[in-house]
């Protein structure tokens, strides 16, 4: 075996790795969530629209839900809002909102003006819950199954593609009748 072939051999391996890297690069901004396949983090936060009550993760067990992190300061969230209204209208999976480090009055006004796609909104004023969910840039949406396990995470504005290709199939696979 010609040992002078070694540099070429190493390079071929490197090129393969780089090629795979490029293939994955559109996803570069998305860091794989360590929560996938793990139980959703517990939380109990004041309900934005109904301050007397608390939104609890334990109450949500037994059904699918979409956990959407947003804020009025977030431009992409504004862009995704129409999609969320569509999801709400489809009435397949409920949307639970997490209002991340936001001003309550502004958030309420936002929902008033633009429509409220959420079944309930938890107000995370300190940001502690968002950190528990590993949120690093709004908007982010998590799909949680009836057993309370996170099965999918979408970073960025929710798109129709993601809804039809990633979320609906997962929901309908185990609950053929829908929610």
């Amino acid at each position, binding site marked *: 075996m010609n040992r002078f072939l070694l540099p070429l051999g190493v390079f071929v391996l490197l090129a393969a790795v780089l090629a795979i890297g490029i293939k994955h690069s*559109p996803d570069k*901004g*998305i860091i794989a969530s360590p929560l996938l396949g793990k139980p959703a983090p517990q939380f109990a936060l004041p309900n934005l629209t109904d301050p007397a009550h608390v939104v609890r993760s334990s109450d949500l067990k037994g059904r699918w839900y979409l956990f959407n992190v947003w804020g009025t300061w*977030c431009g992409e969230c504004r862009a995704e809002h129409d999609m969320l209204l569509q999801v709400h209208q489809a009435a397949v999976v409920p949307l639970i909102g997490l209002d991340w480090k936001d001003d309550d009055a502004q958030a309420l006004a936002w929902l008033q003006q633009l429509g409220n796609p959420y079944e309930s909104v938890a107000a995370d004023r300190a940001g502690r819950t968002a950190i528990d969910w*590993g949120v*690093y840039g709004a908007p982010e949406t998590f799909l949680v199954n009836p057993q309370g396990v996170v099965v999918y995470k979408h970073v960025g504005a929710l798109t129709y593609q993601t809804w039809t290709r990633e979320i609906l199939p997962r929901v309908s696979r185990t609950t053929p009748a829908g929610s």
Partner: protein
Amino acid sequence: MKRLRTVVAVGVMLAALGAGEAVWAVDTTKLPDPALQERYSVLTHELRCMQCQNESLADSPVDLAADLRREVRDQLLAGKSDDDVRAWMAARYGDFILFRPRYSWRNAWLWGAPGALLLLGALVAWRIVRQRSTLLATDYEPIEEDGHS
């Protein structure tokens, strides 16, 4: 039509927060114990700001970094160890948040590389020197007296 970057929400967030921004966090957090302060400083420099490109928690001015720094401080004050803090962060954000790769079997190739290469290099050098030393006996070629250049 301008070329579109392959934008992900994070990318947009970065742009919105100003990836071109050159401000750094001035973190006036003071922990009561100098040893704790030192550990705080080391940890916040070792943890990555997840919203930024290659900045540490210590240096990043974004809100999330401030929140996470506060978390580090609270945990240290509560008596947690450095590893506890790292594990807590990694459980939520993945190993990507650690600038110091974990000491695990999966990363063994990375941490072991310098040592292994050193060993290999020593072996190669040894072989070459031995080979050339034996060739010395048959090498009659004169060289210029200029010994050092």
